[in-house]
């Protein structure tokens, strides 16, 4: 097993890849990420937004009710409106909260295309929440045990512990 792992860590040939970035990413950062992929031996085909990628996957793979396939009327509909203008559009809101960025996209689905109607983003994410929890825990520790002063590595360990605890806490409604 381990031998298979080490053998296969050496890539045999270049693979094509599609990278996703937050909406807030600037053009320079997108280009830098593409450069990194080229340096890594990958061939970046496209760089798309996180929520757009989710919308494509949702539209193609998940929700077949967006595009109902009724065999008796589909040909008739296609003849009446080849561009799908007559079919009612469905709107889906995609929210993606990562560790650094918050992305929201409103996507309009029509019969054969999706369109990103509006986007919004912020540079606040779970990392900031974790930091707030960790700093609160640190302040409590300092009140209880006066002698403790957090070193850099200790604060890292505390942050990771807080993050793990937060992720393992079950959500209750």
């Amino acid at each position, binding site marked *: 097993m381990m031998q298979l*792992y080490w053998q*296969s*860590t050496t*890539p*045999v*040939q*270049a*693979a*094509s*890849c*599609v*990278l*996703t970035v937050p909406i807030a990413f600037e*053009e*320079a*950062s*997108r*280009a*830098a*990420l*593409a*450069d*990194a*992929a*080229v*340096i*890594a*031996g*990958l061939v*970046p*085909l*496209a*760089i*798309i*937004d*996180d929520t*757009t*990628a989710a919308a*494509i*996957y949702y*539209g*193609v*793979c998940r929700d077949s009710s967006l595009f109902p396939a009724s065999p008796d009327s589909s040909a008739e509909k296609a003849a009446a409106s080849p561009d799908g203008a007559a079919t009612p559009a469905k709107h889906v809101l995609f929210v993606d909260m*990562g*560790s*650094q960025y918050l992305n929201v996209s409103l996507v309009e*689905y029509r019969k*054969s*295309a*999706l*369109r*990103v109607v509006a*986007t919004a983003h912020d540079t606040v*994410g*779970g*990392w900031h929440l974790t930091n707030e929890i960790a700093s609160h825990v640190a302040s409590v520790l300092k009140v209880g045990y006066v002698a403790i002063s957090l070193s*850099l*590595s200790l604060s*890292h360990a505390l942050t*990771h512990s807080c993050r793990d605890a937060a992720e393992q806490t079950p959500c209750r409604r």
Partner: protein
Amino acid sequence: MAEQTTTVAADAVASAVSSDDGNAMQVDELTTSAAPASGSSPELGATTEEAAEPVTGDSFILGIDFGSEESVLTITKKRDSVLPFLVHNPTSHVANSSAFAIRDGQRLLGDDALAQTSLNPQQAVILSKRFVGRHGAEAEAEAAAMVHCRLEQALASNGPRLAAVLPSLEAPMPVFLELIVAALLKHYASFAYRDMVRYGANDGDGDGDGDGE
């Protein structure tokens, strides 16, 4: 400006990493293809159209969600109606840490590096995604507040970009964050290659039986 950055990094490819010209030439195609793709109205069937386009002759497309703290990969087979599936790393997890660290002169990637950030935070680079490609003037204060390894402006031909300075390197010099991200992407891609081999369709002859014949 994007094209300038790309050209500079293509030079960085040639100087820092021994890469062939074929990869560097792909950058120009990328800037033309990435601009409409990051716009507002991609076609619904865009992924399958990309899949049908022969780029390097391999049979898979990687989907990489390079996150600030964790990254996730998917594999899609070209010219196939199989849905994309998630890549699992050797510890059977879907999420890979995006940390980078150096210990005893050796680089650590992913979860190993994340463990190292608690032990020796000065030698670890976290949140590289937030600062990659950005210039020092606009992000230096932000970087000072968020990361613990030293990030400083390094002179590049298109202006000062943020680079990481890791003290334990033999000759401490700024390492561009693009190189760190590239090392991470290569690390993740190795997991994907492993899954391709396991699923038996990357055998090079296209019949998908995994025997290479």
